[in-house]
């Protein structure tokens, strides 16, 4: 059962300065919420968040995009137990699913009110998830789709080798080519070659496109 947390410490990460400033002021007025930091994205932001040790990270999707989509996994690794609420610019299916896979447990849209943002912060701090109704449907559809499609069939259809499937999983965890090379005892160039071959096979334009496609098709689960 969810238990209300008395004093939720929040870090606000947003590219839009008004969003940072005004949300900080609004949330600071709540007796059970304390804003322990606010920042735009920067290469040092993960360290900054870790130093503030918040319970909840409230982030806009623009900041995550600027981090080349690696921010959420990195910050969750740096701050154990951190709950992440993302403010999405729109109800985009792929952005939402990506956020959920990265470990975001609260998702609100910019059509939400400031009160709803505060409520979302409280909910995730109390070990609940927050999801707009229209995106809840996306989750149900995604689960149903994954259950329907046998992965061995898709593997054959995409033509991925065992090694390539292994790479998909590692890319999906946010590892760089260099990190993958170290873990697999390969050269970085060999990993690059594998990635390029995968891109050609599945017709994706970038490495995350391969991961998305495989996940959509149920390969790398």
């Amino acid at each position, binding site marked *: 059962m969810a238990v209300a947390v008395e004093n939720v410490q929040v870090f606000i990460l947003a*590219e*839009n*300065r*008004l*969003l940072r*400033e*005004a*949300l900080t*002021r*609004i949330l600071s007025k709540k007796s059970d919420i304390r804003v322990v930091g606010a920042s*735009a994205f*920067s290469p040092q932001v993960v360290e900054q968040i870790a130093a503030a040790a918040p319970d909840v990270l409230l982030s806009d999707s*623009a900041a995550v995009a600027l981090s080349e989509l690696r921010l959420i996994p990195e910050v969750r690794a740096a701050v154990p137990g951190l709950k992440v609420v993302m*403010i999405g*610019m729109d109800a985009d299916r792929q952005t939402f699913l990506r956020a959920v896979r990265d470990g975001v447990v609260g998702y609100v*849209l*910019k*059509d*939400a*009110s*400031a009160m709803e*943002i505060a409520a979302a912060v409280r909910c995730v701090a109390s070990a609940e998830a927050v999801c707009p109704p229209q995106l809840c449907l996306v989750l149900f559809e995604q689960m149903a789709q994954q259950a329907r499609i046998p992965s061995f069939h898709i593997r054959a259809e995409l033509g991925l080798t065992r090694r390539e499937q292994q790479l998909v999983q590692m890319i999906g965890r946010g590892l760089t080519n260099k990190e993958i090379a170290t873990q697999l005892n390969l050269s970085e160039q060999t990993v690059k070659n594998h990635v390029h071959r995968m891109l050609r096979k599945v017709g994706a334009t970038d490495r995350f496109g391969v991961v998305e496609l495989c996940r959509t098709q149920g390969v790398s689960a």
Partner: protein
Amino acid sequence: MHKVRVLVANRPRLMRELVLATIADQPDIEVVGETQDEAEITELVERIRPDVLIIALQEPESRPGICGFLLGRYPQMKILAIAPERNRSIFYWAFVDIRSNQVQTSEDGILNALRRQPDLVELPANPSGRYV
């Protein structure tokens, strides 16, 4: 004291609420109307005659179509178009033709613009629109 009368009509809802929260404590600025319906803006401007209208800047590279119409009809009014996804907003006013100035999308930037001092707002050199 003359208060700056503001009609707040920007979207999305969260950004509108943040603007309202920014203005709320200012003794010299008064919110005289609020709407989330773009179709209502002209009617509200006609009825309320605000000093400043705040709208959403959906495409930062082009002037919102409503600006030309409203500033032609109500040349004493000024329009602040706030970009929800960028750190630059734009302040429009009528002076023979329509003039505009960039405004930082921050609490200070907005308050300065509402007090008709957009020239005091420092602008970033970075053309990407990112303002940290």
